[in-house]
């Protein structure tokens, strides 16, 4: 009988597979019944991830919408190809692939749907466009499996944000499988990052970090006791808190707009200038 090669489970940050800087792991069991150690993200791991995500965000948002759409589609191609080999049900993987296809479609459309040309009573072209918020910490509902993880990262990414997905140690093996798909899907390093470990403690670190723009929780990602704490800590820096239902259906446009900011531009449209002071 062949001796199997056991995999070290690492986190995915900045396009690289890393261990926790803390050196800590959480014991778990693989889908094949082998004991394994899941990396346990520390406060410093999160801070590093936020810094890297911040640095990657403009580059990701600056890609053409068509290019970003094709990258989502590439993720779907990889997941579909590996459907019978990931540590979840085949149906879950195929559903996750379909979810990525769905978001591939939004990449070059959502801004056209949510932006507007505003009929102001001035000789100005006035338009509002949806754009990224920045860095978002997202947590899927564990019950939603791989589909939930894909949903949690696609929404923020499709609006041009960088995302850090926090996955519980129990699903560490699946999180690594997703990371391995992301790593070959042409996502620029750092725009999507996956941490594993104790969800509540990492969120607790996140909401005390001043350079995180939003927390995005899906379904029953955390206990209700943490919800009030998130609200309270967020108030300090006006951080957004988006709570969504489970990932049975993809995020509708009404949720995607919550993962974005609206910017309005007044552009003079009169040859003689529109400054026209009325006083």
């Amino acid at each position: 009988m062949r001796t199997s090669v056991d995999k070290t489970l690492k986190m995915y940050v900045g396009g690289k597979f890393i261990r926790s800087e803390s050196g800590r792991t959480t014991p778990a069991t693989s889908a094949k019944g082998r004991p394994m150690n899941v990396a346990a993200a520390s406060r410093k791991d999160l801070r590093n991830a936020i810094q890297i995500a911040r640095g990657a965000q403009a580059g990701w948002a600056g890609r053409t919408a068509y290019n970003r759409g094709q990258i989502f589609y590439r993720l779907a191609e990889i997941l579909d190809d590996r459907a019978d080999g990931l540590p979840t049900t085949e149906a879950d993987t195929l559903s996750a692939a379909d979810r990525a296809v769905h978001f591939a479609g939004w990449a070059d459309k959502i801004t056209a749907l949510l932006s507007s040309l505003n009929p102001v009573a001035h000789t100005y072209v006035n338009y509002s466009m949806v754009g990224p918020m920045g860095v978002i910490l997202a947590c899927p509902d564990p019950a939603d499996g791989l589909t939930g993880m894909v949903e949690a990262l696609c929404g923020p990414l499709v609006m041009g944000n960088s995302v850090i997905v926090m996955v519980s140690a129990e699903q560490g093996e699946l999180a690594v499988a997703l990371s391995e798909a992301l790593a070959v899907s042409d996502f620029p390093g750092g725009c999507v990052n996956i941490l594993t470990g104790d969800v509540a403690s990492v969120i607790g670190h996140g909401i005390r970090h001043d350079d995180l723009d939003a927390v995005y929780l899906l379904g029953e990602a955390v206990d209700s006791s943490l919800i009030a704490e998130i609200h309270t800590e967020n108030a300090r820096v006006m951080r957004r808190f988006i709570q969504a239902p489970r990932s049975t259906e993809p995020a509708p446009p009404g949720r995607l707009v919550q993962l974005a900011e609206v910017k309005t531009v007044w552009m003079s449209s009169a040859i003689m200038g529109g400054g026209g002071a009325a006083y």
Partner: protein
Amino acid sequence: MTKRTDAKPALQLAGALDLSPAPESCPAPIKSRYGHFIGGEFVDGDDHFTTVNPATGEVLAEVAAGSDETVDQAVKAARKAADGVWGKMSGADRGKFLYRIARRIQERSRELAVLETIDNGKPIRETRDVDIPLAAQHFFYYAGWADKLQYAVPGGNPTPLGVAGQVIPWNFPFLMASWKLAPALATGNTVVLKPAETTPLSAMLLAEILQEVDLPPGVINIVNGAGRTGGAVMGHPDIDKVAFTGSTNVGRIIMRQIAGSKKKATMELGGKGAHIVFADASLDQAVEGCINGIFFNQGHVCCAGSRLLVEESIAEEFLERLKRRVEVLRIGNPLDKNTDIGAINSVKQLGTINKYLDIGKNEGANVWQSPCPVPDKGFFLPPTIMSGVQQTDTVVREEIFGPVLSVLTFRTPAEAIKKANDTEYGLAAGVWSEKNSKLFEVAHALNAGIVWANGYNLFDPASPFGGVRHSGFGREGGIAGLWAYMGGIS
């Protein structure tokens, strides 16, 4: 000290631009004879005509001309697919088929580009970098709409129309096919497509791709032929929607043909695009833009910027700059990667353009042609600029559909706008200035479906394309491109 002379500055190139031939060599097999693609199968036809390589005049293949019976078969296959598999399929699954088509087009892009260049005469530089990548992008874009149609119309619950009859032109054969097919399929319709008789080959290669991706039989049917076949498609009683890109005259014939029926229609017709250059424009960029506007695809572009309106104070200098730049455009073998301007698509079209050059001369125009060497076989015409023309001249009013630019002048923005809008067409226009407020004011005042500011001939599937007035109605591209293929929304 250098002695001043009156000699005009000339580019001293000393042969530096004499490049070795660099022909694209990707194989693009051509069969000796083509029929049609109906119900997912290639079927033989009869009554064959030939398609030629316009760069050589040599025959490439024989192609069947679809009869009324052939068209009827195709419509029946499309109806069966509309009522059956395609009409019942989820939007997400329809989208996946469109994504597959987009990816296969990307994978076989160079083969498609070579085939298109051979059949059409346009430079490989354009098919490789514009036609084929944009076609793939159109399928990719509309693939993503297929499961999101409820968001495309406020409060809408859209349904498919049924079977669409689509007739496309020879200037962008593969790209026009993708513009027509992708939104129709995304919205759940099935199609009978009639390619142009001088450029049928890339559509036949698309049919191979449709088989590769297992598109359900009958969703796309392709019937070859000329105007008579196109008329049979448009006039077939079981067609729910007609979509036509071509000349305004043929558009009128089709609109009369379907009058009184319940068929929905979109018409993307001719144009006589005004290209306004203000004195405060970045002139070097404007020169490039004007050249792109009229000499892209040999001027076989419905939205071509064929009427240049230059502010009087810079008109002489601008015209000199323009000519100097045009002189170094390379005309020749379309398969050569260095070629800027390829062949006129057909001997018939070359005759039409030459007729307009005669009319221009007779009406008093100064006709200037680039002194660049022109191949001695095939259908070629050097880039041509006509100055000293008036608003009332035939060459200023009518669409020439060739590499021929008319040059007029203006003094004020108001005059520019008035002259630009003094046309029965309204497809596209361009305006150049470094002053944003001027760009906006002029762009908003131009009566055209598309206005490019500090650019020209820009295309993207996310951006609607289409004209007003005699340039037709309906849009292709963007959210607006879906509306024309949706029922239950009005």
